């Protein structure tokens, strides 16, 4: 049972721990003093912990189901579920864009002169090919990779704290002002980015019993572990690197590695970043392509995305579609240098999705009160309502947390939300028409 739990914790934490998390930590530390950022990480983690209880309850109602799509459909119906799912898929692709920027910059810092497009193309092709060939790392290897990532990040963070402050407080280029409440809320909203993906463990239970305790517990344990890892790393980063060098720096981990251990640190942290990118992007690509495949099987996504490889059982066209879209977005983010804008937009979308999932659990308590739940969120109902309503506010604050981006994050999320809503409307009409036709013809029940 212990090994099963650790496997789930590794999946949950491994999904969240991406190379772009270092960039977002640097971005957060660029404007506000480290102790407030650590507080923001703790609060964001606490919010995610509360959401994880609701998600655990939803997963216990629908064990093994394809997560968000099933939960939101059961609570809010087909249209709302599809609209949120499309927004969620856009978020996954945008997150891959941020991830691509970070890894490209990391490789550029250790192998100067290497063409960015070639780097990002090679990495994406590697992950897409691995997925298409149906090569899945064994669970023990996944566990080992996550442990290595966590241990390396913690080691560097603790070393940075232990080494003593190399940047005296007075010499920080950006003053360590106490943030306003709005600034803190924006930091909390942005820090949600650091936990994105912990919920992807829910369809992976090995059996129905896992949903009564292990799956909810694994999400909580992963979030608690991530709070410690990010908190320690942020404190270490602040101690060794000037705040002025952090705000626009997508690779603060490399800067820190170089400060602590010279070239060895740079190369070591570059390897860790690559590992983080490969594990999170690989899992994201797998998860998103399975969602697209599911949509195609429902008749929502184009039929060609349901094509699978008979030999491997991999939905090859869905993998290619998600990989291709992510690659294009990565190129756009790299070329425009908008990783912070994209990052806060991703965080804001996830805030909205988490809010929706909490509301879904609350709604299903009313509409399906008698349904079996092997796990129930222990969070009081009033607190669940409060957190669910707080998430959209955090999203708005996060969207305004990059002053130089102006209203672009709002415009981006507005465009994506409108597109998702229209696409959902189109899909509902299309599937509705198809059902009507097939019922008339008597082709399918």
């Amino acid at each position: 049972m212990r090994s099963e739990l650790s496997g789930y914790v590794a999946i949950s934490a491994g999904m969240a721990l991406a190379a772009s998390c270092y960039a977002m930590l640097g971005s957060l530390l660029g404007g506000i003093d480290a102790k407030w950022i650590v507080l923001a990480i703790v609060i964001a983690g606490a919010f995610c912990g509360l959401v994880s209880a609701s998600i655990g309850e939803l997963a216990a109602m629908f064990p093994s189901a394809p997560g968000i799509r099933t939960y939101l459909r059961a609570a809010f119906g087909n249209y709302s579920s599809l609209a949120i799912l499309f927004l969620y898929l856009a978020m996954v692709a945008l997150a891959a864009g941020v991830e691509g920027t970070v890894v490209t910059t990391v490789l550029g810092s250790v192998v100067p002169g290497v063409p960015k497009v070639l780097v990002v193309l090679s990495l994406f092709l590697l992950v897409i090919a691995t997925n298409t060939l149906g090569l899945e790392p064994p669970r023990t290897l996944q566990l080992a990779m996550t442990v290595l990532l966590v241990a390396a990040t913690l080691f560097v963070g603790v070393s940075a704290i232990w080494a003593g402050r190399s940047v005296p407080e007075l010499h920080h280029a950006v003053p360590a002002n106490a943030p306003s409440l709005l600034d803190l809320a924006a930091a909390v909203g942005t820090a949600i980015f650091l936990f994105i993906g912990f919920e992807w463990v829910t369809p992976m239970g090995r059996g129905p019993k896992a949903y009564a305790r292990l799956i909810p517990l694994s999400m909580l344990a992963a979030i608690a572990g991530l709070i410690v890892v990010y908190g320690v790393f942020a404190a270490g980063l602040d101690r060794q690197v000037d705040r002025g060098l952090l705000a626009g720096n997508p690779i603060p981990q490399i800067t820190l590695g170089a400060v602590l251990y010279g070239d060895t640190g740079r190369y070591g942290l570059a390897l860790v970043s690559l590992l983080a990118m490969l594990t999170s992007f690989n899992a994201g690509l797998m998860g998103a392509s399975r969602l697209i495949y599911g949509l195609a099987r429902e008749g929502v996504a184009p039929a060609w995305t349901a094509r699978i490889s008979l030999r491997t059982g991999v939905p090859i066209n869905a993998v290619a579609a998600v990989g291709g879209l992510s690659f294009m977005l990565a190129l756009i983010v790299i070329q425009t240098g908008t990783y912070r804008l994209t990052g806060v937009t991703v965080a804001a979308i996830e805030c909205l999705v988490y809010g929706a999932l909490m509301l879904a659990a609350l709604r299903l308590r009313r509409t399906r009160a008698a349904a079996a739940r092997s796990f129930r969120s222990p969070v009081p109902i009033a607190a669940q309502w409060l957190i669910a309503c707080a998430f959209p506010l955090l999203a708005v604050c996060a969207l305004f947390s990059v002053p130089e981006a102006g209203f672009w994050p709002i415009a981006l999320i507005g465009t994506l939300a409108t597109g998702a809503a229209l696409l959902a409307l189109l899909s509902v009409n299309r599937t509705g028409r198809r059902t009507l036709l097939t019922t008339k013809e008597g082709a399918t029940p």
Partner: protein
Amino acid sequence: MNPSLPQCLSTFVQSVNTHPSVGKLLKGWEPLLTIEATDDGQRFHLRVQDSKVAEVGAADAESSHSILVRGESTVLRDVFSGAVNPAQAYLEGNLEVFGSDRDQIKLDAISLVLWGM
């Protein structure tokens, strides 16, 4: 009268083993499928081996690669007789499938190849 779940499973096994394309799908994939009805507790085991499916008794139902398929007996009957799209039943939470992503898609693909749905 509707066929019972055991009858549906027997017909399903026959259909899989005689279909010209399903064998390609099963090649190199050798899990033990356990089908469990949540309402009446019926349990059945199907072993996939050498691109063929065979019903096995509980005594032979041990494997390092196993997949559990659960649902109410009517849902299972509809899924294994091709009356209901399993992907739809899975999406709606009426059918539970405990296995890897690859296992889930392979199972779904069998229904797609057999019944085109």
